[in-house]
């Protein structure tokens, strides 16, 4: 009886002590750690670099996660990450918020991406103009026959608002930034599917003959067909490749970025960029 009663008192105390010890051990765990968070597009690249770095520096552990550029930038502003990976540039409003939190965003371009527009391989459409793409994603064009395809409804797939690609595509394609037809009031249409990851979008396109999606070049697989993009109706269609992104002919190429708090030292690793499927800086 007495022992049992005593156990009742001692057990919680032991549990609390064990918990505290566990927390201390875990938080002070050996070696240093680096956290990289942000763009889903940049994740494959950062992962390769992180693996390489951890091979040569076994005492450092790097965690990479890719919920979206917006998440990374929010984490940078809140001071909860070391490096933010982004597939869009930081907004002025975000710089202001960061500075208010004593964080100084420092931008490093790590690669270039040709933002690819992909469809199912069976889709007869092989090129689209920026204006057509914009109309598809605003919901103005809803049938493939309006752009030279079969008479079936278009399933337009986008990333969710966490994504830098979502924002980049909205500004440069949906709102047609830099074109005479630019219209800042255009938004994604209500029929557009917003998916939480690039992989899910690509696998949807691979399985749905009517779907269209915009993954980064590194996510384009054999199961989907990239479209040639025409900046205007008269220009020739350009396929997303390393060459067309490097020589600037591909209309929706974009920088992939790292943001840190203040300027870091020593940046290398460009040889890995091409392995992952993106475009190196030179």
């Amino acid at each position: 009886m007495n022992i049992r009663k005593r156990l009742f008192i001692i057990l919680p105390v032991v549990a609390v002590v064990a918990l505290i010890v566990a927390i201390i051990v875990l938080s002070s765990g050996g070696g240093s750690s680096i956290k990289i968070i942000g763009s889903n597009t940049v994740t494959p690249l950062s992962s390769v670099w992180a693996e390489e770095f951890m091979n040569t520096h076994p005492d450092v552990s790097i965690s990479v996660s890719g919920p979206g550029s917006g998440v990374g930038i929010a984490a940078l502003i809140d001071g909860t990450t070391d490096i933010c990976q982004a597939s869009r540039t930081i907004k002025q409003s975000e710089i202001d918020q960061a500075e208010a939190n004593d964080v100084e965003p420092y931008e490093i371009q790590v690669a270039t991406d040709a933002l690819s527009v992909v469809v199912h391989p069976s889709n007869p459409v092989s090129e689209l103009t920026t204006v057509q793409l914009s109309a598809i994603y605003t919901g103005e064009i809803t049938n493939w026959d309006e752009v030279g395809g079969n008479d079936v409804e278009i399933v337009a797939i986008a990333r969710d608002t966490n994504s830098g690609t979502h924002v980049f595509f909205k500004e440069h394609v949906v709102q047609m930034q830099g074109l005479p037809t630019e219209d800042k009031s255009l938004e994604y249409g209500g029929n557009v599917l917003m998916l939480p990851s690039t992989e899910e979008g690509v696998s949807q396109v691979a399985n749905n003959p009517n779907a269209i999606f915009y993954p980064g070049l590194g996510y384009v697989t054999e199961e989907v067909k990239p479209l040639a993009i025409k900046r205007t109706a008269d220009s020739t269609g350009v396929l997303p490749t390393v060459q067309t992104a490097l020589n600037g002919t591909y209309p929706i190429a974009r920088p992939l970025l790292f943001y840190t708090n203040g300027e870091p030292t020593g940046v290398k690793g460009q040889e890995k960029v091409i392995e992952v499927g993106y475009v190196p800086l030179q």
Partner: protein
Amino acid sequence: MIGKTSPDTTTEPKEILRRRWRLGEKLIESWIFLAGILTIVVLLGIIVLLLKEGLPAFWYTPPWEFLFGTKWYPVSEPPTFGITSFFVATLWVTLVATAISVPIGVACAAYLAEVAPAKVRETVKPIIEILAGIPSVVMGFIGLLLLSPLVQSAFNLNTGLCGLTAGIMLSLMSLPIIISVSEDALRAVPDDFREASYALGATKWETIRHVCIPGALSGITAAVMLGVGRAIGETMTVLMVAGGALAVPVSPTDPMMPMTAAIASGIGNAVRGGLQYQALFAIGLILFAITLAVNLIADRVLDRQKRKFAR
């Protein structure tokens, strides 16, 4: 540990024992008291946090515009927040999930409690309870890879990522709760009731239909409400399979974004204290109000049912 607190060796052993016992009792009492208080403190904390972070959203967007607006553009300049489409999506998904899981769940519970031999019941019930333990992300994968192509071809849809797929997956997730709780409720109906029914010449079906199920209705209602609560609050599965379109869904076969998915897909990139952050907390506040309402209604029904049987 406690023994060391009374080093006074001159006292009689009995006295020491008594004192120890009293001290132990006090400790346990306060421990339990703290545990009890903790749940209330946590609940109050959640309400305060939701109100503090969520209410300012209504300074920027008036409540009626927030509730009845159909445009949700959180990353535009200036942002627009209207959650009608999320709200309707949650309704559709929950409706589909309830419509599927309640008849199947109650029928299954009736079979297990009234018809199945003990051996079958003892094998089937644990298996059903394992179903409850499947992580929601796994259900999302199943929905994405297996169910959505099926739904797409069966209903001749443009895409299998829609409210219907999400609702079916959710019904699978709330089924174990509904079956388990309803079965317990049915088994709690006294055997006298059944015997009286049989004595009046009722068949097994008539007994289940007119005696057992009405007798256990309060428990079944609670089970249904728990299932509905699960369907409203589930996030990962709907995020993966509901499609995430922003238009107000007019049919369950449209792609849609329920409230939980809207919060999950936006909270990551919302900067603490920003407009989007507040708007997402406001959605959380509304979601909380809905689940509270569901629970209160369930409570009322249970109460009425109890009084009816207490005659």
